[in-house]
């Protein structure tokens, strides 16, 4: 009898060609991330100029489709496209034909009929960006799909850490809180481990999903373990995803008492990050949020240049890795 554990690979649907889209950090190589971060850095320099707009993506069209409420992600994608002179169009689910029951496939086909170059999509369901990619010719950027991925958040976090803390290789990052419901956590675990960081997940057992250690991270239920980290990454306690009676934690009060990130639980000089929006007084003490060591506003600023880099990379680098042109030269 042969080997039972081998599932025939050829039963699986073929993978899409790499890097036509940005759907998951898992699709990227370390070189891809390095290139994106380098591009973001050069865009950051241009933003110090008096005239901030670059002609780089003139003539391209970027469509933002948001099926979930979002302030920072949707505004930063829109501004990123505008800074690069692309035409932009933003569609929110409320008030659109989605309200009339249109399927995602039909919305994708409809938008695709305008030949957009990039579709940025946020959707509450895992796999929505792949579906849009299947039915349009556009490059698709995942701006958050359910609990799955939020790749541009992870890229902007890497950018922030590299600018404000230093090299990522060998860095120890503690990610604290509701990992179970967090797409930010999933993208960040992949991104940080890809770049050589050590990642420890800290939180109550029901909020650390079974099997997550296979992503190459360590687990701890003890908030005391964050003191050993170089960076403490605090996750939003996703109250809207906490179903009634689900009992992930007995109460927010107990969660805060046990796992809230407070000044007392941090070492002096420890950097603190949060993807926003924050629940002050729940997962993060307001004194921590407002302290000089908090990088939260820096993250928001990094979001703009990182998303500019993502749009630029998708529209200029193409599916096969080629020598990266300097965006400033192109500009």
């Amino acid at each position, binding site marked *: 009898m042969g080997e039972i554990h081998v599932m025939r690979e050829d039963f699986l649907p073929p993978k899409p060609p790499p890097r036509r889209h940005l759907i998951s950090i898992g699709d990227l190589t370390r070189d891809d991330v390095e290139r994106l971060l380098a591009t973001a850095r050069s865009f950051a320099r241009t933003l110090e100029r008096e005239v901030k707009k670059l002609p780089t993506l003139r003539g391209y069209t970027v469509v933002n489709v948001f099926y979930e409420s979002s302030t920072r992600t949707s505004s930063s994608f829109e501004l990123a496209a505008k800074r690069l002179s692309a035409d932009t169009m933003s569609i929110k689910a409320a008030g659109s034909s989605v309200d009339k029951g249109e399927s995602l496939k039909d919305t994708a086909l409809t938008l695709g009929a305008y030949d957009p170059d990039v579709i940025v999509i946020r959707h509450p369901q895992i*796999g929505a960006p792949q579906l849009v990619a299947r039915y349009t010719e556009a490059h698709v950027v995942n701006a958050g799909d359910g609990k799955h991925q939020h790749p541009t958040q992870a890229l902007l976090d890497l950018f922030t850490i590299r600018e404000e803390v230093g090299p990522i290789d060998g860095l120890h990052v503690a990610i604290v809180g509701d990992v179970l419901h967090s797409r930010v956590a999933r993208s960040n675990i992949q991104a940080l481990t890809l770049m050589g960081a050590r990642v420890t997940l800290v939180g109550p057992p029901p909020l650390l999903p079974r099997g*997550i250690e296979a992503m190459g991270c360590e687990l701890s239920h003890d908030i005391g373990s964050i003191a050993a980290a170089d960076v403490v990454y605090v996750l939003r306690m996703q109250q809207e995803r906490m179903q009634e009676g689900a009992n992930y934690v007995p109460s927010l009060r107990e969660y805060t008492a046990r796992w809230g990130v407070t000044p007392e639980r941090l070492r002096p000089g420890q950097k603190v990050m949060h993807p926003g929006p924050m629940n002050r007084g729940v997962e993060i003490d307001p004194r921590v949020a407002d302290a000089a060591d908090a990088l939260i506003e820096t993250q928001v600023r990094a979001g703009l240049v990182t998303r500019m880099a993502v749009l630029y990379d998708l529209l200029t680098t193409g599916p096969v890795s080629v020598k990266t042109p300097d965006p400033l030269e192109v500009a």
Partner: protein
Amino acid sequence: MLFVRGGRSDDLVVRGARVLDPAEGVDAVCDVRVDGGTIAQLGTNLETNEHRVVDGSGLVLAPAFVDPHVHLRVPGREDEETIASGTAAAAAGGYCAILAMPNTEPVVDSAAVLGSLIEDAQAHAEIPVGFLAAITRGQEGAELTEMAELADQGAAGFSDDGRPVVAPGLMRRALQYHGITGRRLALHCEEPTLSKGGQMHEGAVSAELGFSGYPSVAESTMVERDLSLAAYEGQGLHLLHLSARESVEALRAAQAKGVAATAEVTPHHLCLTDEAVRTLDPNLKMNPPLRSADDRAALIEGLRDGTIGSVATDHAPHARHEKEVPFEAAPFGVTGLETAFAALYTSLVEPGLVPLETLLERMSTGPAQAYGLERPRIAVGEPANLVLLDTAAEWKVEERGFRSRSANSWLLGHTLKGQVRLTVAAGRVVHEQ
């Protein structure tokens, strides 16, 4: 208990096939002659009379398959499948009999609904089909159906498939009462408070993808409960679509103690693991979900050693637009009637995981015996229920090739080895390729 449309009985001679009926101990290259739908003679150089002759050289002639778990979607979702299309799909897959589950709209929980299905089958079924009736009214898990009347009318068994019987007290009553009917109780084992919201197997893949997990213990704790109740009541039962190692182990232990429990496993659980879900293809979403490599190994081992006696497709047709959505929004279920043998031949027999004889037995004798049906046999005087298999032929699974009204197959676009050349069901040629 099985119903088929009336019609001709065929005369036929299959020449020179490897005739393989493991349960009869037959394995020889010879001719088989069918007179008026009945196997009349086995031997070499048989007279053909005026019969049509099928060249079986290089092919395997086996007892046709029995699928104990099909969703025909009638009544209620005739856009997805009908008795005619579902039985035609079964014929193409090499089946001579199938059993349909009662989770339709309305549920098959009364003599009136069952009666209309039987009439429909007598008018349109290409191959014999049996209908299970619900265990509880509306499959709501509150009150038992009128099992005696349903059995008298021809129910092939009882199941709330698609849903578990949640309350242990009611499960016990069902075990006690169904005994008077002589029909099988078939159980969908799922503890809903453990599987709630679950999209796929809980493990490393669900943790990475972010899907809510449907842990294997959601199945196995219910399997263990139902086996305990069956042992206590001295009743048998049939476990539907097992997926977890712990379930197989609990079943094996109960059988060793003398519980008359049978079980089935699907081709997709035998061929795939939860790793496949990384593609986010909604045609890889089913209940129970694809599980770990270790669970899959336990299912294959259970099939091999006979703990699991039946292969069941759990053929679950879904409309195209319902599956062309993100994975989380898609309904559970995949089709399987037309690909079961080829998928299992390709995935289990060719790599040497399961002998061909075992697979043939588990696709025919096993399910027939689980439900107390006559098992298809290749023997003189038996009704002709035959499948002619080309184990060398490769074919590509394509949507336009399906006879089912739905195409939500996890195998679309893939090339399989093993093709059904001819199906004879209840004495009639129902499929030729």
